[in-house]
């Protein structure tokens, strides 16, 4: 670790600095403290807003340090990079030592070290060396302790360990943070975030980038077949739903009802229900009941529209609404057969109108456009992998341990003297129990 290198070596002292826990603690403290600023000062407001709120001097300061978009500022990214460098270098620094512990040949452990261990017990078995060895090996193997035997000056050394690899848990945790950051970088460089608003019945092939405001071509078309809001009985929204269709070269590929928490993904691009706009305009479908001909019109409020082929004229002259939701439409409708019909209808319902000998079916609905958040983020699976890895790593780091036991068997006039020692890197009390239980049971083995 840090102390082993000569202090005169400049490069190694830089290395030690980046490998140190002190740097990690200082960096984490710094990131935490500056982040507080970013939570108190509203982010990403317009420049004028800061001037108005804080005056010219303070807003210049805010501008200088990019405090208005702190988490995107270069210096904040530099802090995150420093943390990453710290994680990488400290891992490289420590890994060889830990790897040595994981792979160490336990049969080479010097007897002196074994005798210095606090967790130890000793007894004499009446069996001969070979028999005592076989017995102990069989018993411990049965308990899941795989034995490796070695010859030493003192006699036979039986060694076993469990969970050696768990010493690597901390590298999983630190590595997973890097994996998450890599995922974030991939998402930021290869992905995009955008928004698009689609009128009911219409389709789009490009969206607007949130960052640059430029158009991004999707490479396919998205059509909004309809937008719908469901309400609870108390008026709270229950569901926002857009019925979307994906088209390629004019061919319908797939339909999906996109809801909040239930997006649509196609070719790596995901569409999220994120907003809507209600218009005063209406969608009116008229069916000629005799001929079965049907057509849907987008009807601006209080504007007359013709259906030339049928010789019809119609319009919405008034409506009733609760909030922004139109509940009833007042329709003006004329054909050559006589004076125009004027009637109220419930939005979303069908009404049949009699004109002379002809019957027309009316369906009137409020016009909506759906607002979609569009995201492409190829880094997200890296992030999720990192998340799984960090939980796994934390579990290994804190709840599993590397436990080792040694049995030194020495011949003593036909009998065998046994010295047993054990060590663990965590959960010492728990291991004490296991260790002394094993010891007791070994003592009581009958020859």
């Amino acid at each position, binding site marked *: 670790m840090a102390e082993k290198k000569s202090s005169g070596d400049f490069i190694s002292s830089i290395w030690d600095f980046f490998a140190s826990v002190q740097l990690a603690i200082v960096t984490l403290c710094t990131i935490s403290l500056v982040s507080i600023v970013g939570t108190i000062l509203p982010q990403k407001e317009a420049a004028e807003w800061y001037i108005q709120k804080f005056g010219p001097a303070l807003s210049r300061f805010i501008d200088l340090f990019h405090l208005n978009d702190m988490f995107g500022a270069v210096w904040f990214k530099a802090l995150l990079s420093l943390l990453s460098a710290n994680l990488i270098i400290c891992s490289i620094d420590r890994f060889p030592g830990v790897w040595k512990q994981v792979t160490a040949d336990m049969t080479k452990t010097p007897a002196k070290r074994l005798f210095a261990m606090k967790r130890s017990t000793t007894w004499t078995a009446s069996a001969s060396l070979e028999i005592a060895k076989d017995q102990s090996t069989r018993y411990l193997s049965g308990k899941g302790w795989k034995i490796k035997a070695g010859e030493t000056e003192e006699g036979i050394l039986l060694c076993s360990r469990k969970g050696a690899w768990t010493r690597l848990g901390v590298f999983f945790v630190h590595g997973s943070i890097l994996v998450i950051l890599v995922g974030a970088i991939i998402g930021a460089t290869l992905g995009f975030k955008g928004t698009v608003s689609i009128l009911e019945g219409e389709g789009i092939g490009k969206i607007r980038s949130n960052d640059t405001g430029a158009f991004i071509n999707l490479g396919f078309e998205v059509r909004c077949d309809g937008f719908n809001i469901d309400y609870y009985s*108390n008026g*709270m929204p229950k569901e926002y739903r857009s019925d979307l269709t994906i088209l390629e070269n004019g061919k319908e590929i797939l339909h999906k009802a996109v809801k909040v928490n239930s997006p649509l993904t196609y070719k790596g691009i995901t569409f999220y229900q994120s907003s809507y706009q209600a218009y005063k305009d209406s969608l009116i479908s008229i069916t000629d009941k005799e001929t079965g001909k049907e057509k849907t019109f987008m009807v601006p409020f209080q504007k007359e529209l013709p259906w030339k082929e049928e010789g019809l004229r119609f319009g919405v002259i008034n409506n009733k609404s609760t909030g922004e939701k139109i509940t009833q439409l007042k329709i003006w409708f004329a054909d050559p057969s006589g004076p125009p019909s004027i009637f109220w209808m419930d939005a979303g319902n069908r009404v049949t109108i009699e004109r002379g000998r002809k019957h027309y079916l009316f369906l009137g609905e409020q016009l909506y456009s759906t607002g979609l958040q569009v*995201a492409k*983020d190829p880094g997200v699976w890296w*992030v999720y992998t990192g998340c799984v890895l960090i939980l796994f790593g934390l579990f290994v780091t804190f709840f599993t341990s590397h436990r080792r036991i040694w049995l030194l068997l020495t011949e003593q006039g036909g009998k065998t003297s046994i010295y047993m020692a054990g060590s663990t890197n965590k959960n010492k009390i728990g291991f004490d129990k296991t260790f002394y239980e094993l010891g007791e049971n070994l003592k009581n083995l009958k020859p």
Partner: protein
Amino acid sequence: MTVFDERVQKKAYGYYDRCLPLRDINKRQPIFGVFMTSSQLLGITTFAYLFSTLLYVTMFVFRIKGLGKFATGFTFIALIIHSAGIGLRWHESYQMGIGHAPLTNMYESVVFFAWTIIAIYLVIEWKFRVKTIGAFAVPFAFLAMAYASLSNDVTRGITPLVPALQSNWLIAHVITCFIGYSAFTVAAGLGFMYLIKDKSDNKRSSDDKTLLGSLPPLQQIEDITHKTMIFGFIWLTAGIITGAVWANTAWGTYWSWDPKETWSLITWFIYAITLHARYTRGWGGKRVAWLAIIGFVSVIFTYYGVNFILSGLHSYGSNG
């Protein structure tokens, strides 16, 4: 343009309390043969935790060991009533036709918070056989319940879920976060306990001669604090992750540095620092006790402060 983007969606969490309850909210079914509602059960729970607090504090202050068993038993019964209250509230939401787990607004989450504090405390008491911790942990559960029951910031009606909150990730997020928060709360109680014991003449063992002496040895308090913080840290990690997954399925961004997310990260850093400090520099004792308390303050700010203190500064936090 009606926007229900991220900011507005997040406002909904903890703020939709202000919505009108459904009309049939008062249709409750009789339980246990009497006309009992979840709010009555949770009201009883609040008083039960007050009594539990008094039992534990009396036991500690007057060093009446015999009271310990009674305090534990009583607290356990209070927890059962509490669980029944949460279960009944769940049931009631289904009767109203808007069934969802009772974990979706400020009131419900604080009630769950108190439940987890007691559950975690009782496990610690059972595992380490130290009853004096109760005098430092149970009061938090009482305060949480009292706040949930009495504060004007909190509306207690069962409300339906707005679209953004209709997600299993939200349930996972609330459960994981609050297990973490509760563990940190108990750890802060233990931190106080450590600092008090540190003033005692008898730091290394426990005796009944003095008030402070009756507390467990410093070494043991530190050990329990550390284990509780590790437990909380893992759950907070899971809580941040489930929150990120939820955000990503709801609006395509797993992390947006909004104040709630940022504060949860600050809290995570504080405990990360604490765990590193102890592991690698031999920090211990007093400093860890203080960090447990500072971490708890950060937890409360993440949960409460962001909604109610920073709200004045942010468009998404305003009442509505």
